[in-house]
C-alpha cells in the first residue's frame, strides 16, 4: 500500500452522543484525520445495512457506526439493534471479499470529545493498515 493512502471513511453518528462528541472534539481543537465524513442519524437504530453497502459501493474504505453507550440509548435499544446489524453485515461483506474490519461499531457519550478523536484515529489506522478497498482499486483501474 502506498504511504500517501488517505482512506475515505464514513461515520454514521447518533445525534445524542457521537455527533455531539464530534462537535466537542472540534471545539476542543483535538487532532483527528480529516478524511472522515460524518453523517448525522437520529439514533443508531436508524442505521440500516443498505446505507453501509451503498457507501462501500461508492468507494468508501471503511464505515463505522457510533452510538450511545450501551444502556444509554435515547430510544432504549437502538444501539443494541445497530450492533447486531453491524455484526450481520460484517459477515455478509466478508463473503463478497471485503474485510469485516472495514465496518465497525463504537459506543461513546456526548461528553467524550477526546474519545471521539481517539476512535477516528483508531479506525483510520485500521483502514490504513487494510489498505484501499478492493472495490475501489478495481474501479480506478
Amino acid at each position, binding site marked *: 500500500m502506498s504511504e500517501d493512502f488517505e482512506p475515505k471513511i464514513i461515520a454514521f453518528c447518533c445525534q445524542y452522543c457521537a455527533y455531539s462528541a464530534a462537535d466537542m472534539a472540534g471545539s476542543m481543537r483535538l487532532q483527528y484525520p480529516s478524511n472522515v465524513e460524518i453523517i448525522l442519524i437520529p439514533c443508531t437504530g436508524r442505521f440500516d445495512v443498505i446505507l453501509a453497502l*451503498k457507501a462501500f459501493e461508492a468507494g468508501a474504505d471503511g464505515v463505522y457506526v457510533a452510538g450511545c453507550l450501551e444502556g444509554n440509548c435515547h430510544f432504549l435499544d437502538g444501539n443494541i439493534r445497530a450492533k447486531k446489524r453491524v455484526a450481520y453485515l460484517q459477515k455478509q461483506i466478508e463473503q463478497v471479499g471485503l474485510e469485516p474490519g472495514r465496518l465497525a461499531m463504537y459506543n461513546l457519550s456526548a461528553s467524550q470529545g477526546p474519545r471521539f478523536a481517539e476512535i477516528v484515529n483508531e479506525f483510520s489506522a485500521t483502514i490504513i493498515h487494510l489498505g484501499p478497498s478492493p472495490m475501489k482499486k478495481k474501479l480506478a483501474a
Partner: protein
Amino acid sequence: MIIAERKPIDEIKGFVEGKTKVLLVGCRGCVTVCNAGGTKEVGILASLLRLDAQKEGRDLTVDEFTLERQCDPEYVDELAELVEKKYDAILSMACSVGPQFLSRRYPKEKFYPSLNTCFIGGALAHGIWAEHCQACGNCIIHKFGGMCPITRCSKSLMNGPCGGSSEGVCEISKEVECIWHLITTKVMEEDRLEDFAPIQPIKDWSTSRDGGPRKIVREELVK
C-alpha cells in the same frame, strides 16, 4: 405465511457467474414480511453482488424490481417490459412459487431461486420464525388444544407424547419444544382428559401432498 431465507451468497454467486446483466425480482408478499425477499432484501443482495463484481473488476449490472406478488399472473405480467431488456439471468427473491410462475410466464428467460422456501409459520418475535403448519389439507388442531402435532411433533404423532419427551423438550434437540408436552399439559390443566381420551384414528393423508400435487378450483370465482 410462507417463511423463507436467502440462500448462501456463494450459491447465488454461482448463479450469476459469467453473466453481465442480471435482474433481481423481489416479492411484496410473505417474503417481505419475513424479511427475506422484499425491496430491502433485493437492495442488499444487489449491492453485495455488485461489490463482489467490483472487487474482481468484473462488469456486472444488477437491476432491482419488486412485484406485488410473484404467485399471481396479474402481477407477474408487470415484469414484461423489464424482461425485454434482455437479462442474462433473473433471480427471484420470492418463495419457490415465484420463480416457477416467472418461468412459466417468460419461458425464454433463465430464472434462479435466490431464497430457500423453508416452511409455513409465523413470527414468534421479530426475527424469530417457527413452523406451524404442514398443509395436510384436513385441519384438526381443535382436537389438540389448538396445536398441530403433525407439524410440531418431530414424529408427527397423533397420540403422543413418545417416550423421548423430557422436561418439555423433544428427544431430537433441547432447542425443540415437545408439542405433546404442551398439548397434554394444557388438557390436564383444564381437567379435560376425558374429552381427550379417544384415540386419534389413523390419519388419511390423501388430502396432503401424499395424494399428489394439489389444486383448488372454485367455480364461482373462475372467469
